[in-house]
């Protein structure tokens, strides 16, 4: 029997078997977060850095108790940062929080209506973080020229949006995502916009190395079931990409031979 093998996803020298990365936002509680992440099979899990609640919820469950750094590769993100300076500060706080772990997801936003990446601030932040020894996975627009620039600077993964964060509109410009995949030597992951399993499969069929999503699972009616759907979709899309799809044809081509028909 032929072994259908795949190479691991390699990001900054770290190897992963799962190509689905998930966020930890928007869940009902930490128990649901933990269960959904386990169901998704994800090995890389994003989280956010925020001010500690002082004098309240002292015994509230800590995210890192549920999503343990011993079990998962934690990926701090800079969501909510609108300037390079804030993003750099957030990454440094995260590195301290995780005892020196230097893999980060850089995300610098343009405005709170679109949450569209501010690529000017993103480039500035990437430069500072790379010089400071971080491995930078970077959220960006689906502009192949910006993607190329970020790779040339030394970012370890390029993560173009499929559509606006939290919109669930899927991949709005598959041609641009494809261009970025074709030109990149580092992993390309669609980050943002995934709404349902077919969107995740499409990203993988385009040749992306992985998919990062959060709302599509957390805001599904049944998050655990959607987590499993996403896991399967990413695996199916990856296999379809590796298998190589059949060519599209203008006319029909029968699956069953014509020869030997009883009415022949």
């Amino acid at each position, binding site marked *: 029997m032929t072994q259908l093998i795949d190479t691991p996803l390699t990001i900054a020298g770290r190897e992963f078997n799962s190509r689905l990365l998930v*966020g*930890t*936002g*928007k*869940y009902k509680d*930490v128990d649901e*977060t933990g269960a959904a992440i386990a169901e998704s099979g994800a090995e890389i899990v*994003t*989280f*956010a*850095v*925020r*001010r*500690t609640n*002082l*004098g309240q919820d*002292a015994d509230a469950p*800590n*995210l*890192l108790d549920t999503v343990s750094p011993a079990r998962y590769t*934690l990926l*701090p*993100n800079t*969501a909510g940062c609108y300037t390079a300076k804030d993003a750099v*500060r957030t990454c*440094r*706080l*995260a*590195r*301290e*929080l995780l005892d020196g772990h230097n893999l980060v997801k850089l995300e610098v936003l343009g405005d709170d209506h679109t949450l569209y990446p501010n690529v000017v601030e993103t480039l500035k932040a990437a430069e500072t973080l790379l010089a400071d020894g971080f491995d930078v996975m970077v959220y960006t627009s689906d502009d192949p020229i910006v993607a190329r620039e970020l790779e040339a600077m030394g970012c370890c993964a390029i993560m173009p949006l499929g559509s606006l*964060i*939290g919109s669930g509109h899927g991949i709005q410009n598959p041609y641009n995502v494809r261009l970025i995949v074709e030109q990149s030597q580092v992993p390309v992951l669609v980050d*943002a916009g995934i709404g349902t399993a077919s969107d995740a499969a499409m990203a993988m069929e385009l040749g992306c190395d992985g998919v*990062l*999503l*959060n*709302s599509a699972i957390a805001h599904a009616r049944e998050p655990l079931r959607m987590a499993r759907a996403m896991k399967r979709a990413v695996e199916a899309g990856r296999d379809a990409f590796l298998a190589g799809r059949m060519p599209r044809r203008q006319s029909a081509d029968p699956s069953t031979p014509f020869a030997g028909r009883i009415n022949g």
Partner: protein
Amino acid sequence: MSTIQIRLNGEPYTLESTVDTPASAADLVEQLGLSDRRIAVEINEAIVPKSQLAETHLAEGDEIEIVHAIGGG
């Protein structure tokens, strides 16, 4: 007993501190009940590593941020 005023996570905060025993970042963390929590501390926009909290003295007007991990995409 004398006190100093700092800003903690964007809010004014009063801390006991004397010349003989100036308050440290570790004292503040302990006073907040956060000693055994997974947190990170920044003073005036510079990270203070866990190993240096005890020897980092706080001064009037210091801006302190204490952060932790929460759910996010």
